[in-house]
């Protein structure tokens, strides 16, 4: 187990190196000169040369790459180009709101998804099963944008059950007032794909020999589902939930933006809109690192809850 962990950690280096190269390539060769972006509407050559010197983009590529690597290792990406706030400061203050929304969102959608999946897996092949599957396909085909627009209009603007957008000061106020509608939208969006995916996990287990044995012993169907099948199907579900987390951190930007939640996702979208490259660079590299760590953690967890799994 330790050897495996060390080997996987060792493999982080080429992958992270690749991410750094990719980000460096994208920002230096695909995009334009950032100095022109920063110099404003009426640039003069002096300002541009000045900015280029400040950013270090007049240095050779090797030196620039070294600057970038140093930024990653020290965690100091400098300051935002548009607000001059330290990038590290931005991360520290935006993580809390993101997690306030994401953790309850993941918990609720996983529990509901498991319940729904277990129900349709129990009546597999029936009309209910087929109808729910088609309903899930339809629900998935509606863009997340529509869910956000309609829910916000209906529940916040028309019915006034929740604030339309905003963020408070205390944690409880945020969780119970401002984050609620965002969580509801997130659950509504992720429920259909979750039910579909988890249903296949349940079906994989239902056809196993141990289920037949349990049934032959005369166990009740309820006990088989709740004790035998659920515990086995939960293994891939848990790892799947874990794997979703880093993607959601940046991927929840639509929800965060519409509900005015000052999280990482909203910061990303703002940075993209303002061409605020230090923030985008930092987010990309750190989220990539988080993804790798979570992938490793998921594999180790898989091994821990299912001793049959062989890690190689």
């Amino acid at each position, binding site marked *: 187990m330790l050897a495996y962990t060390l080997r996987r950690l060792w493999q982080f280096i*080429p*992958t*992270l190196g*690749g*991410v750094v190269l*990719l*980000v460096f390539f*994208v*920002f230096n060769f*695909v*995009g*334009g000169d950032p100095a022109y972006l920063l110099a404003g509407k009426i640039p003069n050559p002096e300002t541009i040369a000045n900015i280029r010197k400040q950013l270090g983009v007049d240095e050779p590529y090797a030196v620039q790459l070294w600057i970038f690597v140093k930024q990653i290792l020290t965690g100091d990406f400098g300051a935002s180009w548009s607000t001059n706030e330290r990038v590290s400061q931005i991360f520290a203050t935006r993580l809390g709101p993101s997690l306030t929304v994401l953790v309850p969102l993941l918990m609720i959608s996983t529990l509901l998804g498991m319940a729904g999946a277990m129900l349709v897996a129990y009546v597999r092949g029936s009309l209910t099963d087929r109808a729910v599957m*088609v309903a899930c*396909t*339809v629900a*998935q*085909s*509606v*863009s*997340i*944008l*529509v869910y956000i*627009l*309609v829910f916000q*209009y209906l529940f916040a*603007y028309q019915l006034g059950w929740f604030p339309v957008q905003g963020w408070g000061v205390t944690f409880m106020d945020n969780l119970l007032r401002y984050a609620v509608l965002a969580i509801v939208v997130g659950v509504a969006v992720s429920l259909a794909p979750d039910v579909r995916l988890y249903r296949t996990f349940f079906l994989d287990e239902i056809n196993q020999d141990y289920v037949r044995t349990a049934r032959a012993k005369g166990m009740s169907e309820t006990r088989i589902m709740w004790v035998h099948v659920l515990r086995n199907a939960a293994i891939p579900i848990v790892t799947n939930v874990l794997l979703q987390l*880093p*993607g959601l*951190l*940046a*991927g929840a*930007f*639509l929800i965060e933006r519409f509900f005015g939640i000052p999280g990482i996702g909203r910061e*990303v*979208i703002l*940075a*993209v*809109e303002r*061409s605020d*490259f230090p923030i*985008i660079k930092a*987010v*990309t590299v750190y*989220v*990539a*690192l988080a*993804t*790798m760590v979570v992938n490793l953690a998921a594999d180790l967890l898989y091994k821990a809850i299912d001793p049959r799994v062989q890690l190689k």
Partner: protein
Amino acid sequence: MREQGVWALAWKRFRRDRLGFASLIVVAAYVVLVLAVASGLLARDWESEAGVNFAPPTFIGAEAGEASTVKKLEVARPVSDYGIPDPLGPDLEAIEKSLSGKSRDQARALTLPLGGDKWGRDVLKKAVKGTETSLFVGLAAAILATFIGTLFGALAGFRGGKVDDFFNWLYSVLTSIPYLLLVLTVAAVVNQKGVLTVILILGLTGWTGIFRLIRAEYMKHKVREYVMAADAIGASNGRRMFVHILPNVSHVVLVQLSLHVVLFIKSEVILTFLGYGVSVDTVSWGSMLAEAGTELLLGKWWQLTVATVFMAVLVTAFSLFTDAMRDALDPRLK
């Protein structure tokens, strides 16, 4: 009697799946619609401001209050208030008449079949024109991604060794960045709108899943007897990869292509909504949804509804069709 081919058998299985067959018909209808738009038969004048601003759908009827305010405004022209006649008024009127054949206000309908947008453009025509953009972007990006994924997957799986290591490294780099973040980052840096840009961004970043599957298929197939037999009679590497093995994994390619069309249609909508997608002079479902957000607050729900329904029907049909195709092509799965 000649044995039925694998495709004929798959088609037979597919025809038996009623839901899948129905969704194929819906998808085919969309393709016909897109061809009609592309050839200029339909929705060519989607940009013309055919109705009054926010013209409601015909089945609701014109808003009486709005029509009367329009007239009132007409009477209370600030210029005539001072008793000085507008020196250019008659000329402008004449120009407008000669341009449209009738005066501007007469030409504008009070209602449109499914409503109008902020400028009075027909929402139905916009949605039809948007279908062309969205489906074209989805298809083209999916073809590009499938091509890259298949090529890389074939190379990695067939050659193994260093080549495999290199492509696997590329794969793990690209997949360690969440897909939407990757797309957004590239979009932010490229900072250029347009159909071609969206296709390139989606296609060049979205091939990883296909690569993984095709690579596994090639690893499985390259040790099979028919490939070794081909090697024995002197078939080159390229010939074995693309003439011998590719037809045998083409069902995986086809299903992935279909899955990615749906994925890219949804991604394009989000990209365009955020302002990194197709440019302003083209309409897509994403740009319609972007306008619909503020319209909803004014109570003008029709553009949102029409765009959502157009998209949902196509995406649902395409997904169900993909499921049915997968079942038909690989009967072992069921």
